[in-house]
């Protein structure tokens, strides 16, 4: 169901409701078909349909390991560092 933000100071809704600037309304709050007309006339602004919150990137083990590597060190040195052994 589309959601809108009221841009004009007032608009008429369904069932004698009056919405004011800044209110968020849905199609069910409006007379059927009024939403699109109000958007066209500039009374309402169509809000993008609510997005699912993006899943946070989980670092892969390989990447996490890569961060522990010391720049300039040889591959062997890094492996030894990980396992806690001195070369």
């Amino acid at each position, binding site marked *: 169901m589309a959601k809108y933000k009221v*841009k004009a100071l007032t608009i008429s809704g369904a069932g004698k409701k009056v919405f004011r600037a800044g209110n968020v309304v849905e199609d069910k709050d409006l007379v059927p078909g009024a939403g699109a007309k109000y958007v066209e006339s500039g009374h309402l602004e169509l809000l993008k349909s609510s997005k699912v919150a993006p899943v946070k990137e989980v670092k892969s083990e390989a990447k996490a390991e890569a961060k522990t590597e010391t720049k300039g060190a040889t591959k062997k040195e890094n492996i030894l560092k990980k396992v806690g052994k001195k070369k």
Partner: protein
Amino acid sequence: MTVQQAKQLYTQALVAVYTDQTAPLSFLRSFFKDSTSDTKLVSVEVQRGTEKVAIDVVRGTNGNRNSISRSTERIIEPPMYDEFLDATSLDAYDNYFGAGASTPTASTAARFLNSAGSKLALIRNKIERAYELQASQALFDGIVQLKNGDNIDYKRKAGSLVDLGAGSYWSAANAATADPLADFKNAGDFLRNVGKMRGGVLNVVLGGDAYAAMLQMDKFKETSDLRRIDLVDITGPVQNSVGGVLHGEVSAGNYKVRLWTYPEVYTDANGDQQDYVPQNKFLALPEMTNFNLAYAATPVVMDLPTNSAFNSAVRQKKGKYNMYDYVDKRKATHNMGLRSAGIAILTAVDQVYTAQVLA
């Protein structure tokens, strides 16, 4: 008469009477022209004009054919107000009609009529406030809200119902950037370009907070302080007879703007005081408005003594306010009341501009 009352006749004098009977003011209604009709419905007919320019033609050819668009008619059934009082609750009623007063005199009649008249005036004031509120709702919201009927939406354009937004409000945070004169100019441009207003004078009615905030904006103060260029002329407030308070005139673009406030309030159904002019908004109107306060006819019961089929009937009677009275035989009350059916109509719907200038 008790002994105490008898003593007071010689020892006590009533020097003044004060009744808290506040007559409603009519500043917002003053922008509407009154009209009455003898029908239940009222209508307005609107024909849109254009500002097209004639185009030259080659001699000997056809001219440019003009087609005139049809006008639109809007039919409205105005809300009816019907307020009454029980006259038997008045002291003067018993004095006139009560026991021992079987022969009414001129003085008892005058006392009763005076008493009933002042109470009916209270009722009339109540209905007048409803019309003032209608005018306020039409001018500030574009929607007249009714309790028992459908709301009347004049479908004002979004461009005439503007929320400046947090970044442009006349607030302390925006004191350096907010520009009230530019906002008045935008109002004038809308009224001129969309509303086809004639003339260059605007009446701007501000809420009290909006007016105070306007005076604090840096750009407004800078313009006011210009030497040898007199674009702002604000003096002490002067109240007119219908309650509008004139503060002065400012120049905004091509327009001369008269600044008004209207510190009038009403009591709502919850007993709270409300402003007719919202504190955080301003309203801009052309000097000559095209709005109507149209009164439709109201029903009255007519006696039909010569009609063999019916003793009485209901007819529609023309008038702003129609008085009636009847005796309720079951309740044994003598009721007197007023009926009125008016509606504030924005005939030229694009000749009004409202902006919210504070949160």
